[in-house]
C-alpha cells in the first residue's frame, strides 16, 4: 500500500520562514543516542538545527520552510534506529513552564537575600556576646531590613496569594501560618530595630521563605514532569489511520486530524483507530481490548466498530463518528461520571497535617501571649515572645517533608519504567490493601502468542514462521514473532479468510485454518490441552503441525503476584471474558478470587462490594470496559498498551511487557509514604522541643535559624532514602 503520509498538523511555523517539529523519541537513553540523533539529523543540509532534550526524551528539529517534509525527519530517525512520534505541545504547557521559571526566580532571590542577611546576622550574634557597638548593630539591622523587606514582598507572593485565597474561601491551609509568621516576624523586627533592640528576626523570616520556596519548586517540578511524561505517552500512543480521499486515493494521517464523516480504510491485521460504522466489507474482529472477551466477532456493513479492536480477516471501510456516540461508549461514559465522585473526596496528607497544625500553633501563640501578660510582663514584651513562638513553629520542615519525598520516589519509579500521572497517587497507592486485576491484556499480553512452542521442532518452526511472516493475520503474526520474525517466504499467496500458501520444491505448503490444512484429527488433541486458544495448522507433504495461539501471561506475572501476596495484599481477578478462559489463568497464578463474564457495571458493583467491606482497592486494567472501575478504585494502574480511555482514567502507567512494575510501584509507594509520615513525625518532635523554648522566651534569632535549617536538612536527607529502594527483581528487559 503506497499511501502517502501527512503530518503537516504537527508542524509549527515560526517567524522568518522557519518550520519546526517536536518529536518524542522512543529508546533514547544515553549520551550516545543523543549524539547519534543530533549529528545524524544535522548531516542533512536542509536541517537548520536539531536539539535533543534528554530529560524529556524529545528532539526539536527546525528547517527552512518548504525544503523538508516532516515525514522525512521521521524516516531519517528511523534510519538511525530510533522510532519517533510527532508531538503536539499542549497549550497550557507554556504557562506551566513560565510559572516554573518564576518560582525558580523567587528561589534565587530568596537564597541571595538569605545569604546576605546571614552575613550580617552572624556578625551581630558574635558581636552581641562580645562588645559590638550599638550603633553598628543598628546599622546592620537596618541593612538587613533593606534586603529582607523587598525580598519578602517579591518572593513571598506565592504564599501570601494562596493564604489570601484560602482565607477568602473561609478555609485554612499551610500558607496561612506561613504568611502570618513571616509578616509578624518582619513587622516585629522593624519595630525592635527602631527601638535599638539586641534581636531582630530578618534572617529567620527570609530563610523560612527560602526553604519553603524550595519545597514549592520541587512540588511544581514533580507536577510538570509527570505532565511532560504523560504528554510523551500520548505521543507514543498516537496512531495514524488510512483515510480514503474523495478522489479514491489514500493518505495516512494522524488520528487527531481525522474528522467525523471521514472514511477510513482498515486492513486485516490492523488495529482499528477510530469509532465508527462499517460502510463496506465483512470481517472478524477481536474486541478483547474493549470487552475482555477473547473470542472474535463477525461484523459487516452497518455494524459499529470501536477504537482499540483488532481487524482480523477482511478489509473494512469505516465512516468515522464523533467519539462517544456508540452505545457501549455512552454506557461507559455514564458509569465513569458516576464513579468519579469517590476520588475527589481524597484529602492529601499535607492538607490533613495543615488542618491539625494551623489551629494548634495559633492557640499556642495566643496562650503564650496571655500567659506572659498574666505573669506581669508588659504587653510589648509578651507580644514579642508570642511572635517568636509563631516564627519557630513555622512549618518549614513540613513544607519540605512531602514534596521532597514525592520527587525522589517519582524518579525511582521512572527508573523502573513506571510513570505517575499525579503526585498524590503515590499516597493512595501506598494505602491499597487489595489489588484487583483485569485479565485480558493486563495479566496476559495484549498480543496473542504461540502457546505450544515447546512441542514443535525448532527447525520446523523456522520454516512455519517464514511462511507465517508472509501473512498479515494476527495469528500468523504471533507464529512469526515466536521464531523471532524471520524473512517472509517468497511467492506466498494469501487466501482470504483461509490462510496462506506457497510452493516449495513443487509441493504446496499451507498455513491457515484447521479446515484449510485438513488437520481436523491432529487439532483434536491440541484443542483439548489448550481449550481457550485459537488453533491454526500447517501442512507440507506428509508433515502436519497444529499450532495453538492464544493469550499468554505477561512475563514475571507469577513473581509479581507472589510478591504482592507476600506483602499481605488481597488479590482478585475481574474479567469480561468467559469462565473457561479466566479460571486457568487464576489457577496458574494462584489467585483464588475471580469473577468472569462481567459487564463494566458488574465490575463497578464488585468493587463497591469490596469497598463496603472496608477494603482499599488498587485496580489494574487496560480495556475500555475497565475504565469505570479504574476511576472508581482508590488508585489505578494500566499498562502502556491500554486503550486511551483506560489510560486517562488511571493514575499510574507502566511501560514494557512485564507485570512486575505493579509490585515495584506498590513497594516504592509504601516506602515513600513511610518516609512522609516519618518526616511529619519529625516535624512534630522538633516542635515539641522548640515550642517550650520559644514559650519560655529563650528563642533568640540564633536558635531560630539553627532550628529551622537543621530541621529542613534532616527532612530532606531522610527523603533521599526513598530513591534507595533495593529492588527484589528488575522487570523483564532493562
Amino acid at each position, binding site marked *: 500500500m503506497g499511501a502517502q503520509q501527512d503530518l503537516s498538523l504537527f508542524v509549527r511555523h515560526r517567524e522568518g520562514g522557519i518550520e519546526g517539529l517536536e518529536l518524542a523519541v522512543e529508546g533514547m537513553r544515553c549520551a550516545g543516542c543523543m*549524539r547519534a540523533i543530533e549529528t545524524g539529523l544535522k548531516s542533512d543540509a536542509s536541517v537548520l538545527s536539531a536539539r535533543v532534550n*534528554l530529560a524529556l526524551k524529545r528532539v526539536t528539529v527546525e528547517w527552512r520552510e518548504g525544503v523538508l517534509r516532516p515525514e522525512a525527519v521521521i524516516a531519517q530517525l528511523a534510519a538511525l534506529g530510533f522510532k519517533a512520534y510527532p508531538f503536539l505541545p499542549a497549550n497550557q504547557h507554556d504557562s506551566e513552564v513560565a510559572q516554573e521559571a518564576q518560582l525558580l526566580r523567587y528561589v534565587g532571590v530568596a537564597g541571595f537575600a538569605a545569604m546576605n542577611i546571614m552575613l550580617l546576622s552572624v556578625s551581630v550574634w558574635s558581636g552581641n556576646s562580645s562588645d559590638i*557597638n550599638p550603633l553598628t548593630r543598628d546599622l546592620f539591622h537596618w541593612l538587613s531590613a533593606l534586603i529582607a523587606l523587598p525580598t519578602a514582598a517579591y518572593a513571598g507572593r506565592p504564599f501570601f496569594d494562596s493564604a489570601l485565597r484560602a482565607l477568602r474561601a473561609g478555609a485554612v491551609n499551610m500558607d496561612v501560618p506561613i504568611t502570618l509568621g513571616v509578616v509578624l516576624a518582619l513587622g516585629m523586627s522593624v519595630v525592635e530595630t527602631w527601638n535599638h533592640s539586641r534581636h531582630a528576626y530578618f534572617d529567620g523570616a527570609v530563610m523560612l521563605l527560602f526553604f519553603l520556596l524550595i519545597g514549592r519548586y520541587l512540588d511544581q517540578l514533580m507536577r510538570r514532569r509527570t505532565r511532560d511524561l504523560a504528554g510523551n505517552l500520548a505521543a507514543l500512543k498516537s496512531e495514524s489511520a488510512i483515510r480514503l480521499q474523495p478522489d479514491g486515493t489514500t493518505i495516512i494521517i494522524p488520528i487527531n486530524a481525522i474528522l467525523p464523516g471521514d472514511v477510513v480504510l482498515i486492513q486485516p491485521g490492523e488495529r482499528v483507530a477510530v469509532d465508527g460504522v462499517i460502510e463496506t466489507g465483512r470481517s472478524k474482529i477481536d474486541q478483547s481490548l474493549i470487552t475482555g472477551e477473547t473470542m472474535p466477532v463477525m461484523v459487516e456493513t452497518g455494524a459499529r466498530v470501536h477504537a482499540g479492536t483488532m481487524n482480523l480477516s477482511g478489509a473494512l471501510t469505516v465512516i468515522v463518528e464523533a467519539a462517544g456516540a456508540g452505545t457501549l461508549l455512552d454506557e461507559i461514559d455514564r458509569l465513569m461520571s458516576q464513579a468519579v465522585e469517590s476520588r475527589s473526596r481524597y484529602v492529601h496528607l499535607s492538607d490533613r497535617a495543615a488542618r491539625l497544625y494551623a489551629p494548634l500553633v495559633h492557640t499556642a501563640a495566643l496562650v503564650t501571649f496571655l500567659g506572659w501578660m498574666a505573669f506581669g510582663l508588659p504587653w510589648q514584651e509578651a507580644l514579642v515572645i508570642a511572635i517568636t513562638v509563631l516564627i519557630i513553629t513555622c512549618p518549614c520542615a513540613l513544607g519540605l517533608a512531602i514534596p521532597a519525598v514525592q520527587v525522589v520516589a517519582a524518579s525511582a519509579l521512572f527508573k523502573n519504567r513506571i510513570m505517575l500521572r499525579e503526585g498524590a497517587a503515590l499516597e493512595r497507592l501506598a494505602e491499597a490493601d487489595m489489588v484487583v486485576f483485569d485479565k485480558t491484556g493486563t495479566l496476559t499480553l495484549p498480543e496473542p502468542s504461540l502457546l505450544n512452542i515447546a512441542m514443535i521442532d525448532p527447525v520446523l518452526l523456522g520454516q512455519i514462521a517464514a511462511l507465517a511472516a508472509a501473512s498479515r493475520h494476527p495469528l500468523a503474526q504471533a507464529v512469526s514473532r515466536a521464531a523471532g520474525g524471520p524473512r517472509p517466504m517468497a511467492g506466498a499467496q494469501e487466501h482470504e479468510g483461509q490462510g496462506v500458501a506457497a510452493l516449495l520444491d513443487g509441493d504446496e505448503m499451507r498455513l491457515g485454518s484447521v479446515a484449510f490444512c485438513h488437520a481436523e484429527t491432529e487439532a483434536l488433541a491440541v484443542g483439548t490441552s489448550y481449550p481457550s486458544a485459537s488453533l491454526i495448522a500447517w501442512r507440507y507433504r506428509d508433515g502436519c503441525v497444529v499450532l495453538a495461539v492464544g493469550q499468554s501471561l505477561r512475563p514475571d506475572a507469577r513473581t509479581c503476584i507472589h510478591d504482592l501476596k507476600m506483602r499481605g495484599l488481597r488479590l482478585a481477578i475481574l474479567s469480561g471474558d468467559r469462565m473457561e478462559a479466566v479460571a486457568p489463568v487464576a489457577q496458574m497464578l494462584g489467585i483464588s478470587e475471580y469473577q468472569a463474564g462481567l459487564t463494566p457495571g458488574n465490575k463497578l458493583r464488585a468493587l463497591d462490594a469490596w469497598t463496603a467491606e472496608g477494603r482499599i482497592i488498587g485496580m489494574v486494567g487496560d480495556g475500555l470496559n475497565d475504565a469505570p472501575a479504574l476511576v472508581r478504585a482508590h488508585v489505578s494502574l494500566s499498562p502502556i498498551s491500554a486503550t486511551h480511555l483506560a489510560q486517562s482514567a488511571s493514575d499510574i502507567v507502566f511501560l514494557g511487557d512485564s507485570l512486575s512494575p505493579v509490585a515495584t510501584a506498590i513497594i516504592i509507594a509504601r516506602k515513600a509514604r513511610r518516609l512522609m509520615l516519618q518526616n511529619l513525625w519529625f516535624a512534630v518532635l522538633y516542635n515539641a522541643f522548640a515550642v517550650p523554648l520559644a514559650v519560655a522566651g529563650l528563642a533568640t534569632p540564633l536558635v531560630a535559624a539553627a532550628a529551622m535549617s537543621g530541621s529542613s536538612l534532616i527532612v530532606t536527607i531522610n527523603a533521599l532514602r526513598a530513591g534507595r529502594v533495593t529492588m527484589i527483581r528488575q522487570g523483564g528487559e532493562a
Partner: protein
Amino acid sequence: MNIILILFPLALGLGLAGLIAFFWCLRSGQYSDLEGSGWRVLEDDDIDNSPPAAVVLPEQR
C-alpha cells in the same frame, strides 16, 4: 569601622552579580534539560569537525 561601609556594598554587589548570572542561566534555557547538558560536556565533536587547516584564529571571530 568605616571599612564596613566599603565592604558591605562590595559583598552585596558580588551577591547580586551571582543572582544576575543565575537569572541569565534561567533565561538562556540552561535548566530545561539537566540530564543532557551533563553529557554534552563530554562531546568533542567541536574539535574533530574542524580540520587543522581551518583553525579559527581568535581575531577572526
